[in-house]
């Protein structure tokens, strides 16, 4: 005997699901550090996401009030630890703006070269880790192989591999080394003799020559991979208006179609570094985008980063060409206990993850009265709640990964 059901909706109603609270993080690998997301889910569908941050909070701003700006620069390394060079540069420029210091041309060319190398390294991690989030392991290995060589080059320049404190108030701490052995990673890839000594800039050129054709491979591995496209295209759509209102910057903003990059649109003290360089600013939508991709989705944000790597390679090459003939020295001296004027200034620079701002208030002492670091990831992360509302549980790593957040910078 079979049971007759008159109205099929009655059965559906009887097997309803309950809402569940799921804690994602702070130890979850796909949260890029110590981010904790509290998810309210119904089955596979996420109704609400609440980000909880602060696990890495060290109150760097309070520390900054007790140190002079060059002494605080090592702390900026530890904010965005994947792009230490760019953070150093932001803080150094803010101090120079406050005290009205002029930096020689040579130091500016050096800064462009180093900062763009840092951007390449940071975007390589962003790309590799994003592939890892989505279950593709090999791009991560390739990205870290390449990044390792940049870290080797940075080590030759300043002795540190992650926390450089290299770009400082007035220029940089050292000049580029005249003779270094070819980084072992690069030598084994190109078949070069490991003991051959070249200048730092020659080694960097060797590396760029090797990296540039490889970008095509990353596109085959990830960008054009149909699984990758299914996981990213059309997911996590951030509108232009929301991106601006929520203060999103960097690749997240440009992925939503806003043509804005501080290297071109910023304040003169920053943009004059990039005068005379030829580079483009990649902005979504892209002609190469797959048909599924929408303006402001995960795929667009990812692709902006990939295209920026190409632009940065060009910028480093141009800086290397300019450096030997640039005028002045790599550094103007600045005393650690030099007194700051009774003034205040705010300066934003284009870091790999967005616009990093430093706000300094001086009051006649060597230590600023207030040292504020406005984090770009902090603003970028604040849209997660909006982006993840109504998405599937499996899309959360995809959305958070596409924002490319570094918790050290958010929590400061």
């Amino acid at each position: 005997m079979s049971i007759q059901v008159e109205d099929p909706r009655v059965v559906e109603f009887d097997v309803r699901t309950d809402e569940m609270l799921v804690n994602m993080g702070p130890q979850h690998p796909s949260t890029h550090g110590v981010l904790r997301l509290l998810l309210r889910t119904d089955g596979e569908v996420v109704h609400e996401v609440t980000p909880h941050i602060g696990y890495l909070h060290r109150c760097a701003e309070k520390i900054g009030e007790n140190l002079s700006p060059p002494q605080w620069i090592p702390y900026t390394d530890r904010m965005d630890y994947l792009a230490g060079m760019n953070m150093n540069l932001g803080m150094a420029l803010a101090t120079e703006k406050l005290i009205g210091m002029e930096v020689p041309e040579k130091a500016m060319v050096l800064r462009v070269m180093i900062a763009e190398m840092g951007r390449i390294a940071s975007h390589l991690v962003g790309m590799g880790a994003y592939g890892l989030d989505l279950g593709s392991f090999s791009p991560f290995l390739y990205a870290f192989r390449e990044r390792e060589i940049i870290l080797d080059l940075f080590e030759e320049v300043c002795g540190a591999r992650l926390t450089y404190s290299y770009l400082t108030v007035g220029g940089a701490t050292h000049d580029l080394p005249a003779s270094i052995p070819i980084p072992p990673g690069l030598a084994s890839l190109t078949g070069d003799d490991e003991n051959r000594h070249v200048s730092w800039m020659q080694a960097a050129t060797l590396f760029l020559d090797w990296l540039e054709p490889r970008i095509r491979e990353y596109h085959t591995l990830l960008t054009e991979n149909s699984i990758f496209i299914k996981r990213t295209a059309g997911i996590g759509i951030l509108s232009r208006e929301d991106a601006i209102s929520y203060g999103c910057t960097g690749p997240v903003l440009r992925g939503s179609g806003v043509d804005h990059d501080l290297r071109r649109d910023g304040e003169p003290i920053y943009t004059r570094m990039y005068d005379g360089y030829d580079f483009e600013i990649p902005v979504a939508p892209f002609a190469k985008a797959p048909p599924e991709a929408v303006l402001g989705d995960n795929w667009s944000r990812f692709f902006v980063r990939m295209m920026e790597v190409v632009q940065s390679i060009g910028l480093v090459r141009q800086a290397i060409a300019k450096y030997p003939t640039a005028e002045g020295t790599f550094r103007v001296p600045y005393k650690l206990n030099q007194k700051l004027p009774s003034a205040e200034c705010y300066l934003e620079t284009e870091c790999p993850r967005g616009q990093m701002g430093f706000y300094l208030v001086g009051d006649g002492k060597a230590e600023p009265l207030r040292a504020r670091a406005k984090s770009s990831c902090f603003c970028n992360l604040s849209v997660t709640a909006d982006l993840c509302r109504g998405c599937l549980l499996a899309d959360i790593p995809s959305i958070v990964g596409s924002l490319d957040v570094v918790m050290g910078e958010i929590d400061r």
Partner: protein
Amino acid sequence: MNVSDIHKRLVDEFGDKISGVNSETLDPWIEVVPSAIVEVATYLRDEPELRFDALNNLSAVDYFEPDEKKAAKFSHEPHLEVVYHLYSYANKHFLTLKVKLPRWQDDEPGVLPEIPSVTGVWGIADWHEREAYDLMGITFTGHPNLRRILCPEDWEGHALRKDYDFPQEYHGVRN
């Protein structure tokens, strides 16, 4: 548009709610009284020639010298300042807004000063105001979710205040 022009327009619109201007410094600023911040911010965002559609940074500064010997030399009156750094993507110009607040409401130590929240004007103000509340101890009235953001919920005090006492212990963990 430069700051003097913006200041002139704001004074025409809001009169004595605009309490000061400095167009000579590195980042020219305009000072607003606390009660008018939301209407001034809305006007700055919506007026076509101004269109400050982005809040780049919201922070607060504590002008105070806790050491009595040094306080005589300190050149500022003790007060708090909330600073808004605005940017217009449409017109590509910057502006700094400032609001002065007492260090404690009605000079009663322990009572946090109040200022209306601009969450309704710029979305990012939500998190920035939570951070200012957490670290500087400023109550943003009308904020939808004014909880601590970087420190734990049961943390005591506001770390960026100049007279903050560093805690000796937190949940049995000694510093």
